[in-house]
């Protein structure tokens, strides 16, 4: 039976476990490198949030002040990220750009999560045929990439900072509907929900007490990762010139502005790009850690 023995002795990840489950710490990061990654991600996010809230603490330069004699200077002590074509400090512009990116990211993900939560729970509680029909509609929308959907919304509403936020929000909603609905359908049949109904507690109260908080928990975890996708989407739209216009400091717009001089002055586009990357990766690391914790709690 040795082959089957080995099959029996493998866990879902395919690592041999020889008949017993290895103990795992509950939730959070499992290994030392992963834990350090989590710490690093939290530090990056704290810094970015600090920049968004009080940019003046991070730089003495005015992001809009031009200084033509110093144009296109490479990174130096005075200008750590260099200067752009009109001599503006790239570091200061990255710092001041944090606000709009984080605002759009958090606003869009939060709004989408909230809308998705409500719609998803409603669809999940609806009678089966209604719910199934609604989900087919959601599936059709989900078949399109989020970015493409956002592009369509901007095409209809016209460019601008606010339209971008709205477009990114609308495009992200279907994912949350799907998640919220799936969780609601499971909970609806869960024995503890049935137990509460059997106490004679009205359905609306049972839903409010036992369904909404649980679904909100799993949706909010996904929303953490969603902030990252929203930042990428909004930076992408700005890059295409559909968002805020010059001279507003915005990461996507800055990358777009530096793209033509990438050969002579790589720093103009690269530093905002690295900032977007660091932010999104950090959000993703944090979101995963939160999800592991939530899963650890659920079982």
């Amino acid at each position, binding site marked *: *039976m040795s082959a*089957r023995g080995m099959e*029996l*002795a493998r866990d879902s990840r395919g690592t041999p476990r020889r008949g017993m489950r*290895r103990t795992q710490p509950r939730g959070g990061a499992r290994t030392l490198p992963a834990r350090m990654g989590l710490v690093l991600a939290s530090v990056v996010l704290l810094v970015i949030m600090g920049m968004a809230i009080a940019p003046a603490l991070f730089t003495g330069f005015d992001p809009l002040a031009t200084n033509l004699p110093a144009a296109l200077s490479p990174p130096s002590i005075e200008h750590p990220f260099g200067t752009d074509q009109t001599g503006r400090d790239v570091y200061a512009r990255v710092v001041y750009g944090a606000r709009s990116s984080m605002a759009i990211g958090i606003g869009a993900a939060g709004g989408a999560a909230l809308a998705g939560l409500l719609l998803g729970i409603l669809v999940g509680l609806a009678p089966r045929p209604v719910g199934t029909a609604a989900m087919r509609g959601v599936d059709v929308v989900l078949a399109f990439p989020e970015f493409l959907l956002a592009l369509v919304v901007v095409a209809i509403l016209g460019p601008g900072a606010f339209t971008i936020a709205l477009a990114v929000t609308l495009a992200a909603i279907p994912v949350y509907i799907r998640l919220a609905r799936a969780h609601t359908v499971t909970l609806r049949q869960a024995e*503890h929900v049935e*137990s509460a109904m*059997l106490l*004679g507690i009205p359905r609306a109260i049972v839903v409010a007490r*036992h369904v909404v908080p649980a679904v909100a928990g799993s949706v909010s975890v996904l929303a953490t990762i969603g902030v990252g996708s929203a930042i990428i989407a909004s930076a992408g739209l700005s890059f295409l010139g559909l968002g805020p216009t010059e001279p507003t400091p915005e990461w996507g717009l800055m990358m777009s502005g530096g793209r033509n001089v990438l050969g002579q002055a790589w720093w103009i586009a690269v530093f905002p790009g690295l900032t977007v990357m660091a932010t999104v990766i950090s959000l993703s690391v944090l979101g995963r850690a939160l999800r592991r914790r939530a899963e650890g709690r659920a079982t």
Partner: protein
Amino acid sequence: MSGIDVRGLRVVIGERTVVDDVSLRVAPGECLAIVGESGAGKSMIAHALLGLTPDVATVTARRISVDGIELRDADEAAWRAVRGARIALVSQDALVSLDPFRRIGREIEEPLEIHSRASAPDRKRLAQAALESAAMPDAASRMRAYPHELSGGLRQRALIASALVTAPALIIADEPTTALDATVQQRILQLLRSIVDAGTGLVIITHDLAAAAHLADRIAVVQAGAIVECGPAARMLAAPQHAHTRELVDAWRVRPANRPERVDAPVLVAEGLTKTFAGAGRVVDDVSLTLHRGATLGVAGESGSGKTTLARLLMGIETPDAGAVRLGEMRWNPAPESARRPARRRIQLVHQNPRAAFDPRWSIGRSIAEALGAGGVPRRDRAAAVTRALEQVELDPALARRRPGQLSGGQRQRAAIARALAARPDVLVLDEPVSALDASVQVTILALLERLQRETGVAMLLISHDLRVLAAVADDVLVMREGRVVEAGATARVFAEPRHPFTRALLDAASLDADAPGPG
């Protein structure tokens, strides 16, 4: 020597000794049952016999000899040559252990591919022969079946065939009948016995003393990793020496309790209940019952007999196709939910899985407080009432702050009972309330239910596949089969003189008397 000979086996994980100085010998044609409660270390012994202990465990022994091969210091390669060829495993859950994407025949051939040079047609022939010796009906065509196409009993036979195919000297069976119904269990036990009689050694790991009684020549009782008593099966069961063996045997005896005759007002009356599900046919067929205040009615039957659907009809979760349920003076089912809701608290359900009653995100105390609210306790009195509710079920009130996942199975079931009673119900429906628990914990939960019934006068409907449980607490029993009531009466009468052959078969399966005829 042939067979298996283990001396001084010790398994240590970290600081903990999980198997402590275990010595055992099994000769060809002999069956040893290793019996104990969950966590006693039975499975770890079985894994050590197969060289499958976890990496973190340190295994030491003076001797581990399998079929004449010394394996004390064997490396993985040496174990691999022995495992499946000389010593084979039959595991508990055949649905999990069989590859869902592979036909039964291929599954059974696999050990031959690894351990023999037999040609493909020979392997096929041997696999089919193994299936036939596992008494698989229609073996030739079942070779091409997938696991999901077989019933639980047939899957277990396929698993046994895959152990038999290499003609091992020894088979280790880890809870081979636990997931099966009593009557199917009996047939698998008979099959295992015939394999032993044909000359194979068998070690069966089980918590089921009745299974051990029917199958084993010798029984070893394990407690805290050590064998506390070992001897011939009949002697062990008739005259247990060690206190723990006595405890296990006592917990297992089918002994109808002598309960005082008392007839109070009926609180729950069901008449002619019938329920048909599309695809499953008539799941509950013309069932009538009456439940009296302060009394317990037991419902016995195997899986698929309609017990759980009956409970759901009584609870007003399902609507019957015919028949009706009255709760006290009230028309209960069928009835509009709006009329039923205010009275819902009067009939409460305790699930088999005690986690079910609790929202995993809520503390135990908060869940009990919710039920107290439904029972009409004002908000400001609830904290004190939660403490009383937990004390009533003999739990430490400090547990109120814990999450359901932080309690043991027994504690959770007590908390679930506390929650059900917090609504001050007239009727408690208990669906397999103790079948997930160890025998010794079962006894304490059943004693608790009896005490609570005396104190509160609640009427109980207790559903169980386990006759010992019903014998302990039920005043009357119904025996269900395929949705119908085949026998009903006072518990003592039904157990002493069963009238229906099915009742007799169930009683024999649960009996510790090895000579009791199995069901045909």
